[in-house]
C-alpha cells in the first residue's frame, strides 16, 4: 500500500530546505523499495518546526520536525512510514498543543490538503459555500457576509459586508474585485501561507464576491517577493478554470467570473488600497484622495471591492457554515477568528488562528513560549510597522479591534512582534519615522517632509539637544501627521512613535551618547 508523506511547499519550509528533504525522502524510499507518495502540502503554521514532515498512518497524520536532509535515513530506519518513534517525532499533528488549541476556520484546510488538487479541496468542503451562494440572491449573499460580522483583515477592520453592499448598490458597470495580496507588514505572512497552502479558498472567496456584487473580473495584486505564491495561484486559477469554477459560467451558473494575478510594484505603500489601484492601472503608486471610495469609483473609475486575502478567504467558510456559526466566535464587535502571526523574539513563532478575545500575554506565553533569548519581554508591537509598542502592563489587552484601539494601538493585519529587554524604544521610534520616510509615496506634505524631519528631531532628542523643545516639536509633528496626512501611512506613523514615548520615556532621556568623531 502506498504511504502518503507530506512535505510542505510553503516558502517558509522551502527556506529551511524542504525541497531537499522531499528529494531525499523520495530517494530513500526508492532505495528501500518503499511505496510512498509525497504530497507537497501547505504549512501548518508552526514555523519553528519546519520542515514539518507528516506521514499518513493508521492512526492518522503524524508529524516529525524540524526535519533536515541528514535526518531522513535515520527516520526511515526508525520506521517513519508507520509512525515510528524518533527524537523528531511530534505525535499526531493535530494533537500538537500549539495547533490543537487553535480555532481554524480560515486556515482549516491549509497544511491539510494538497494545495493544487481541486479534488482534495472539494473533499474538504471546498466549493460548498459557493454552491450555496449560487442558490441565493445577491442581496442575500451580501447580507450573510454582513451578518457574520466579518471585518477587513488587511488593517482597517472595515465591515466587509457593508463594503460589498456599497459596490452592489453602485449603478456603474463593470465592477471589479481586487484582492490585496501585497502583504507588506513586517513579520506577517498569513496571506502568503494561505495562498500557497490553500489557494482555492481565495479563488472561491473572490468568486463569491464577484457573484454577490455583480463583478465579472477579479485581480489579485500580489507582493512581488512571493514567487511561490505566484506560481501556486496561477496553477490553481488554471485548474479552477478547467473545472468550470472560473470562466463564462461559474459552476454552471449564469455568472461569469475570472481572475488575473498581477505582480505588485515592490513598495509598501502599494498595499494601501488606492495606491494599489493606481499601480494596477499602470501608474505610480500614489495615494488617491477619498472620496470617492474605491467601492464607488475604484479600478479604472469603476465600483470595486478591495479586500485583503484573509477577508476574502474567510467568506467560503461563512457561506458554508452560515453567518451565525461564524459570528459565534469572537467578542464585542470583533467576530470570528483572527489569524495572528507571532514573530520576533519568541521561541515558537507561527500562525495562530484564534477567536478574537485572546490576550497578548496568552499568545506570547501559551503559544510563543516566551522569548527566544530567555530574557524578559519588554515590548510587543501589534499590528505591523504602524502598530503601537505595548509594555508589559498592557499585555492583558484582548485581541479585539476596539480594545486595542482604546489602548492607542491597532490590530492591523494581525502581526505580533515580541522584543526582550534589550530593545531601545527610542531607536524603534526613530525607525518608525525612518520607515515612513522610506516608504512615503511623497504626495502629501506632512508625511513627505514630516517623516524626514521626525527622524531628525528624534535624533536631536536622543542627542540631548534642547530636549524639551524638541519633544514638544515632536509632539506637534505627531499631531500634524495624524490629523493632516492624506493616508494612513503618514497618519498612523505617530502611533508607534507616541507609544514608545508614552510607555518608554526613559529611552528618550538617557544621557547623550559620547560623540565618537570630531
Amino acid at each position, binding site marked *: 500500500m502506498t504511504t502518503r508523506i507530506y512535505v510542505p511547499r510553503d516558502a517558509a519550509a522551502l527556506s529551511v530546505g524542504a525541497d531537499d528533504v522531499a528529494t531525499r525522502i523520495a530517494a530513500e524510499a526508492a532505495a528501500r523499495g518503499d511505496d510512498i507518495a509525497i504530497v507537497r502540502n501547505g504549512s501548518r503554521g508552526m514555523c519553528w518546526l519546519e520542515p514539518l514532515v507528516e506521514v499518513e498512518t493508521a492512526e492518522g497524520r503524524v508529524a516529525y520536525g524540524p526535519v533536515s536532509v541528514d535526518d531522513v535515513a535515520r527516520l526511515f530506519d526508525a520506521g517513519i512510514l508507520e509512525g515510528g518513534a524518533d527524537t523528531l517525532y511530534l505525535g499526531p499533528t493535530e494533537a500538537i498543543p500549539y495547533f490543537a488549541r487553535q480555532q481554524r476556520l480560515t486556515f482549516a484546510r491549509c497544511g491539510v490538503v494538497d494545495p493544487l488538487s481541486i479534488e482534495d479541496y472539494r473533499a474538504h468542503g471546498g466549493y460548498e459555500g459557493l454552491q450555496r451562494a449560487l442558490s441565493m440572491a445577491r442581496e442575500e449573499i451580501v447580507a450573510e457576509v454582513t451578518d457574520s460580522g466579518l471585518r477587513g483583515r488587511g488593517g482597517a477592520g472595515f465591515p466587509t459586508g457593508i463594503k460589498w453592499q456599497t459596490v452592489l448598490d453602485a449603478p456603474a458597470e463593470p465592477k471589479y474585485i481586487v484582492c490585496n495580496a501585497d502583504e507588506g507588514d513586517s513579520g506577517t505572512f498569513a496571506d502568503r501561507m494561505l495562498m500557497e497552502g490553500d489557494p482555492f479558498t481565495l479563488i472561491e472567496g473572490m468568486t463569491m464576491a464577484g457573484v454577490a456584487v455583480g463583478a465579472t473580473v477579479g485581480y489579485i495584486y500580489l507582493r512581488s517577493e512571493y514567487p511561490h505564491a505566484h506560481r501556486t495561484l496561477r496553477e490553481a486559477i488554471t485548474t479552477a478554470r478547467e473545472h468550470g469554477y472560473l470562466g463564462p459560467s461559474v459552476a454552471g451558473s449564469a455568472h461569469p467570473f475570472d481572475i488575473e494575478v498581477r505582480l505588485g510594484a515592490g*513598495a509598501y*505603500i502599494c498595499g494601501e488600497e488606492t495606491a494599489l489601484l493606481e499601480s494596477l492601472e499602470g501608474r*505610480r503608486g500614489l495615494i488617491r*484622495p*477619498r*472620496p470617492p471610495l474605491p467601492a464607488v469609483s475604484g479600478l479604472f473609475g469603476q465600483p470595486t471591492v478591495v479586500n485583503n486575502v484573509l477577508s476574502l478567504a474567510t467568506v467560503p467558510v461563512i457561506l458554508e457554515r452560515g453567518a451565525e456559526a461564524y459570528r459565534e466566535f469572537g467578542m464585542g464587535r470583533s467576530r470570528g477568528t483572527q489569524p495572528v502571526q507571532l514573530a520576533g523574539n519568541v521561541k515558537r513563532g507561527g500562525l495562530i488562528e484564534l477567536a478574537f478575545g485572546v490576550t497578548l500575554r496568552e499568545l506570547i506565553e501559551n503559544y510563543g513560549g516566551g522569548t527566544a533569548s530567555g530574557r524578559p519581554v519588554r515590548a510587543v508591537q501589534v499590528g505591523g510597522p504602524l502598530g503601537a509598542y505595548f509594555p508589559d502592563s498592557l499585555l492583558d489587552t484582548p485581541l479585539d479591534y476596539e480594545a486595542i484601539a482604546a489602548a492607542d494601538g491597532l490590530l492591523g493585519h494581525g502581526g505580533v512582534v515580541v522584543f526582550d529587554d534589550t530593545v531601545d524604544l527610542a531607536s524603534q521610534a526613530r525607525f518608525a519615522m525612518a520607515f515612513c*520616510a*522610506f*516608504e*512615503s*509615496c*511623497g*504626495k*502629501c*506634505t*506632512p*508625511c*513627505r*517632509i*514630516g*517623516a*524626514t*524631519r521626525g527622524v*531628525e*528631531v528624534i535624533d536631536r532628542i536622543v542627542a540631548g539637544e534642547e530636549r524639551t*523643545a524638541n519633544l514638544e*516639536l515632536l509632539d*506637534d*509633528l505627531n*499631531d*500634524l501627521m495624524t*490629523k*493632516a*496626512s*492624506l493616508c494612513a501611512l503618514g497618519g498612523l506613523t505617530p502611533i508607534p512613535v507616541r507609544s514608545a514615548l508614552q510607555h518608554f520615556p526613559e529611552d528618550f532621556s538617557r544621557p547623550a551618547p559620547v560623540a565618537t568623531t570630531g
Partner: protein
Amino acid sequence: MTLIREADLGTPAIKSSVLLTVEVDGKTVMVPEGTSVMRAAALTGVTVPKLCASDNLEPFGSCRLCLVEIEGRRGTPASCTTPVEEGMRVTTQTPDLASLRRGVMELYISDHPLDCLTCPANGDCELQDMAGAVGLREVRYGYDGANHLDAPVDDSNPYFDFDPSKCIVCSRCVRACDEVQGTFALNIMGRGFDSTVSAGGTAFVDSECVSCGACVQACPTSTLIEKSVVEQGQPEHSVVTTCAYCGVGCAFKAEMRGNEVIRMMPFKDGKANHGHSCVKGRFAWGYATHSERILSPMIRERITDPWREVSWEEAIGYAASEFKRLQAQYGRDAVGGITSSRCTNEETFLVQKLVRAGFGNNNVDTCARVCHSPTGYGLSATLGTSAGTQDFDSVEQADVVMVIGANPTDAHPVFASQLKRRLRGGARLIVIDPRRIDLVKMPHVQADYHLPLLPGTNVAVINALAHVVVTEGLVDEPYVAERCEPEAFERWRAFIAEERNSPEAVEGATGVPAADLRAAARLYATGGNAAIYYGLGVTEHSQGSTMVMGMANLAMATGNLGRPGVGVNPLRGQNNVQGSCDMGSFPHEFSGYRHVSNDGVRTMFEEAWDVGLETEPGLRIPNMFDAALDGTFKGMYIQGEDLVQSDPNTKHVTAALAAMECVVVHDLFLNETATYAHVFLPGSSFLEKDGTFTNAERRISRVRKAIPPKAGLADWEATMALSNALGYPMTYEHPSEIMDEIARLTPTFAGVSYEKLDRLGSIQWPCNDAAPEGTPVMHEHGFVRGQGLFMVTEYVPTDERTNDRFPLLLTTGRILTQYNVGAQTRRTPNVVWHGEDLLEIHPWDAENRGINDGDLVVVNSRTGETALRAKVSERMQPGVVYTTFHHPDTSANVVTTEFADWATDCPEYKVTAVQVSRTRQRSAWQTEYAATREATTRIAVPAETQP
C-alpha cells in the same frame, strides 16, 4: 491700469442640475452637486488656504493646507477633495486648523531657501502668500536638516527656468502638463522626500515638452518661471488682448511694466482658450522688438536702388502719386491691393475700402485665397454660411471626432489640447491624413482609425465614406427629410451609391484599405455626436471646394449639424483668416459675403461711402500676377503679406512683382516681397494697435493697444493716410468707428460694437437682433440657406501626377514652433526647435536613394527645385514626402505647382510630384535668390550720419 489677477476658486466648476445648499462659516450658498467644499467656500467669499489646488486642475489633495472642519464628521477633511453634501456646515477657521496649517507651512519652509527678497517671484508667489496667511513665524526644525537647496537650475528652455531648489512638489506642473496641455512631459521622480519634478529625466529642452507654458503658469512658486520675469522683474499692469498667431485666437493678458511687455499670460476668461496657450502666443512675441524691425518708412525708385528712409508724409505722398500715375497711364484697373489675414478686421476692411472706393476698382484679394477660400465656397453652397459651424467648446460634447487634413497638435495647439482632453474622456477618433500625425498615437490618445490616404484623393475618400452611409442604411432619414432639399438629396444619393464610389472601388486610388474605410464610416454615422475638424489638407487641392462640400454632405446625411458636439469645422491657419474673408477681401464680394454685382448691396455701400463702385469682380491674386506679366497690372499695395514666400510657384510670383512699377509693402520686416518693393511702410505689431480678430469659431475678440506704434502709425492709420493722399477721404478717430461702419453695412455684424465686446469679452457672429449676444452653434433651427443642399461631388484626380521622373508626392504643412512664413517666429528663440525646414521621407524611399538622416537633398518638381536637409521618418508613408514652408532660404513654394482649386483658385500646395536626390549644394535658384535679396535689401545710411 492695474495687474489683473484672476480669481482661483480652487477646483473646476461642475455641471449638474442638482443644487445643494451648504453653509460655510455661517454663509449659505447653493452649488451644483459634485462641487468641492473649497469651491463652495470660495463662492461665499471665504478663501481657504491652498497650494496644490487650482480651478483648472482636478483636485489632488497633497498640500494639506485646505483642511476644514465639517459638522458631524470626524477629523479635518481636505476641502479641495471633499464634495459638498446637502445641508453641510463647514468651518474654515479654528485654532486647531490654524495650528495644522502653520505646521504644514513650517515643514515646507524647512526645505526652502530663505531668499524671498531676491527671488524673481517675490510679490507673485503663493508660498509666500500662504506663509503670511497662516501666520508662520518660526521654523523650529531649523535649516540644517535634509533639503534640496543644492538642486541645480535647468535653464535649457529658451523661455523659462526650472529651479528645483524652490519646488514644493505640489505636482501642479505635472498635472497641468497632463490635464491642461495633454503632453505628459513631466513626472515626479523618486519617492517620499526624494520626490522631484522631472521632464522625463532629461533637460527641458530635450524633453517631450512643447513649451506651452501651462506648467509655468500653474507653479505656485518661482520654481518654474519665465526668463523674462527673472530678467526684468514683476509686471505692474495688464492689457487684455488676442494672440496674433493662429486661428484659435487665444486671449492673453499682456503683462506690462511701463511700455515694456514682461510676459504674455493666457487669460482665463478667454472663451477660445480658457486660460491655456501654446509656445507661440505665450512666449514667441519677442519679434515685436527685434532689431530687424523697420521703424521708418522707406522709398526707392528702382528695386536695385538702396532704400532711403523718409518721413511718413513723403512715403505716403510718393506711393499715392505713383498709384495715380499708373492709373492715369495704364488705366484704372492697373493697380490693386492685398489684405492680410494677420491684420485686424478694421484694417482689412479699410484696405478693401481703399481699393474699392479709392482705387475705384475691385482688385482686392487676400492671402486667405491660398488657404481657406474653398471653405467659404463649399460651406456656403451647401449650408449657407462661409464659416465653421461650432464653437470650440462644442468638442466637449462630441462622441466621435474626425480629423481630416489637419494637424491640430502643431497648428492649432490650444484647440488640440481641448480635443485631446475630450479624447481622453472617451470620445473616439478617426484621422484622415497621409501622414501619421501625432494625434494618431500619443500618450493617452490613440485613433480608432487612421486612413492614410494618398495626397490628392480626399474626395474619393469622403465619397466612399458617404457611400457606406447610404448603402448600409445609416442615413438619418428624418433629419434629411426635415432639413434638406429633397431633389438634391435624391440626386446625390443615387450618385454616391454608385459602385465606383464604394470603398473597394477607390481602394486602389486612395491607398486606404476598404475595410478600415467602412469601419470608420460606421463609427462616424453611428457613434453618437460626430464632429469633423479639417485643415488645409482639405482645402489646398484642385478639388478643395468639392471636398468641403463632400464633408458637408456627409454631415447632413448623418444628421451631424445644428447642435453642440457635431459640425463641420475648419481649423483656420492664421489669426484672422475668418475675419479677412468676412470683411470683403475677395474681389467679388463685400463684407458679409455679398456679391459686388448685387445692386441693392452695392448701392448701400455707394451711399455710405459716397462714391460710385465697380459692378464687376476684380482680379484675384493669380490674375494680378498674370496681368503684371502681360504688362497691364502695374502697382500693388500689400498689407502684412509675404506673397513671395507664401504663394505657389515662387519664380512666377517674383517675375510678376519685378514687372510692376509701384509695389508698396506694409509690414514689420523687410520680408521677401519687399525685395521687389518701391515703398516700404513700417507696420505695427498686434501689441501696438486697437482692433479685433475673428478666430476659426467666428469669435470676434478685441486686440488692445499695449504700447504705442513703434513706427508712429498703426496700420489702419497708414492706410487712412494713403487713402486721403489718393483723394478719397477717411477720417476715423479710432478703430471702434471702423467697426461701427462694418456693423452698419454688414447684417451678420449688425450687433457688434466695442462697447459690447468689452462687456461680453468676445462675440461669435452672426450677432444681430435675432442673436444679440452672438451665435456659438450655427444652423440650430434649420440651415442658414434654408434647406441644406446636397452637392454631387465627383472625384476628379488632380492633373499633378507622379511618373518616372517625379515618382514621389510632396505635401507641405507647418510645425508647432514656427508660424507660416516664419517672419515672426524665426525672429524668436523658437528657432532652437526648428532652425530650418526639413524634408521628411520614409526610410524605404530614403534608402532607395541612398539618403541618410541629415543629408542635404534636392527636391525637383516640374516647376522648380530647392535643396534642404532630409529627415528620415516613419511618420511618412512610402511614396510621400513632406516639408514645412517656414524658412525663406528653403522656399518650398519654388517647387509647388500652379494647379489650384477649380472654384476658388486656392493653390494645390498639398500635392506636387517630385523627385528627391542627394546633393552637395543648394539649388541654382537658391543661390541666385540669395544674391538678389542681398542686392535689393540695402538701406542707405542716412546723410547726416555719413562721415
